[in-house]
C-alpha cells in the first residue's frame, strides 16, 4: 500500500482514505478508523476501485468480521468450549502470520504482482484457517503452527495453489498468469469456493 498517493481521483476524502488504508496495511488502524474506512469504501465508488486495485484483499469480506462471527457462534455452544478456544488460537496464529507477512512484504518488496500474490496467499490461508475449521479443528498446535509458517513462507510466482490440510480444491491450473483464492467450507454441507482471477479470460 502506498498511501494517499494511490488516491488521485475526484473524491474529496481521498487523502484521508489513503492514510487509513496505509494504517490498515501496517495493522495499526484502530476500530474507529476501520469503521470509517469500511463505511467510506462501501459508499464511494472511486475510492473503492482505487483501494481494490492497490489491495485486492479488500475485495473479500473483512476477515475480522468472519473471525468475530466464528467466535460468537462457537461461544454460544457451551459443550464445545474447548473447540472454540482451539479455533480462536488457530485463527489468531494465522492472522498473526498474515500481519507479519504484510509488514515484511511492504518493507522488502515493491513489485505489485508479488505483493498481490503474497496477500492472496495470506487471504486464502486465513480464510481456509477460519472457514475450514471443521477440517482443522482436531489438529494440534503443530498443525496450527504449520499453517502459520506456510502463510509466511516465500511463494513462487505466479501464485497458484496453496497447500491445505486436505486435498487442494483446485489443481493443474493451466491458465498462465491466473491467481487462485480458495475458501474451504465451514461444514461438510457448506459450499467450497474457488475464485480464479484470470486477466485473459473471455467472459
Amino acid at each position, binding site marked *: 500500500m502506498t498511501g494517499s498517493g494511490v488516491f488521485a481521483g475526484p473524491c474529496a476524502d481521498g487523502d484521508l482514505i489513503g492514510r487509513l488504508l496505509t494504517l490498515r496495511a501496517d495493522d495499526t488502524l484502530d476500530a474507529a478508523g476501520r469503521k470509517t474506512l469500511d463505511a467510506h469504501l462501501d459508499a464511494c465508488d472511486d475510492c473503492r476501485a482505487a483501494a481494490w486495485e492497490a489491495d485486492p484483499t479488500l475485495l473479500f469480506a473483512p476477515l475480522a468480521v468472519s473471525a468475530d462471527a466464528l467466535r460468537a457462534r462457537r461461544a454460544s455452544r457451551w459443550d464445545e468450549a474447548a473447540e472454540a478456544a482451539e479455533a480462536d488460537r488457530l485463527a489468531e496464529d494465522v492472522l498473526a502470520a498474515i500481519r507479519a507477512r504484510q509488514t515484511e512484504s511492504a518493507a522488502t518488496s515493491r513489485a505489485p504482482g508479488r505483493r498481490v500474490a503474497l496477500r492472496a496467499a495470506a487471504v486464502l490461508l486465513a480464510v481456509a484457517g477460519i472457514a475450514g475449521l471443521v477440517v482443522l479443528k482436531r489438529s494440534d498446535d503443530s498443525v496450527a503452527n504449520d499453517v502459520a509458517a506456510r502463510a509466511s513462507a516465500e511463494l513462487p510466482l505466479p501464485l497458484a495453489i496453496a497447500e491445505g490440510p486436505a486435498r487442494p480444491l*483446485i489443481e493443474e491450473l493451466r491458465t498462465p498468469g491466473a491467481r487462485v483464492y480458495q475458501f474451504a467450507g465451514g461444514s461438510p454441507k457448506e459450499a467450497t469456493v474457488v475464485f480464479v482471477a484470470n486477466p485473459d479470460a473471455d*467472459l
Partner: protein
Amino acid sequence: MIAAICAAAAAAAVIAEATPTVTAAVVRVFALRYRAPEDALAVVRPLLTDSGSVLVQPKGNTLTVRDSAAAVERAAHSIAAWDRPPRPIDLRVTLLRASTSGRAPPSSALETSAELRSVAERLKRLFRFTDLARLDAAVVQGVEGQTVAYVLGGEYRLEFRIEPADDARQVRLKGLLFEHLRRGPGPGVVEVRNDILRTTISVTIGQPYILAVGRDESAAGALVLVFNGTWRTPVPGPGIGGID
C-alpha cells in the same frame, strides 16, 4: 555380579544402537481389476520407504511392489480402496453471472431455490458481488472414466473427464475446460472457442463446489459455476453427454 550384568546389558544396548535394523523385503504382485497400473503409482509411491520400489506391468495390468512388510501392507490397503469399479454420477452444473454493477437481473429469480440461495449467501459473504443471475443449469450424467461436454447458456462450453479421486467421497473433474463460444469472423470459421479456464478440480459428493472466474480481484463481474454431485444408482446403457 550385578555390576557385570549391568555392564553386559549396557554393551548389548550399545551394539543394538550401532547395528542398523534390517527388515526383510517383501514382494507382492497386485492384479488391478478396474484401473490402469500406471495410475496406481501416485497412490502407492508415497506409502513406500526409501528402499521400496514399484514395477508397472501394463500388459498384465499388474503392479509389483517391493518394500518392507509394513509398507507393502499399507500399499495393499490403499490399492484395494482405490481399485474400484467406475461409479455413475449425476453432476448438476449451474452457470451464474455475478456482478456488482446492478446490470444483472434481480437475484430474486435466482433465489427461488434453497440450494442456490445458500450459494448466493456464501458468495455475497465472501465477495462484494451484489447481483447473481442464473444463465443456465444442466444435469450432466456420466461415469468415472468418461469425458463429458455440455453447452451452457448457449454460448459457454464445459468439458471435463470424470475421474475417481483418492478420497472415495470425491470425484475429480480432470482437464476441465471452460470456454466462451463466439461467432466466427467469417463464413469459413463458424465458431471460435475462447478459453476462460483450464484446470482440474475435486468435487466432494454432496457438497456444493463454487468455481468463480473474474478478470481480476476487483472485477465488477464474474462467471460462476456451481457443481453438485450425487452418486447415481447404476442403470444399463451409456450416460448422457458422453463423448468417449
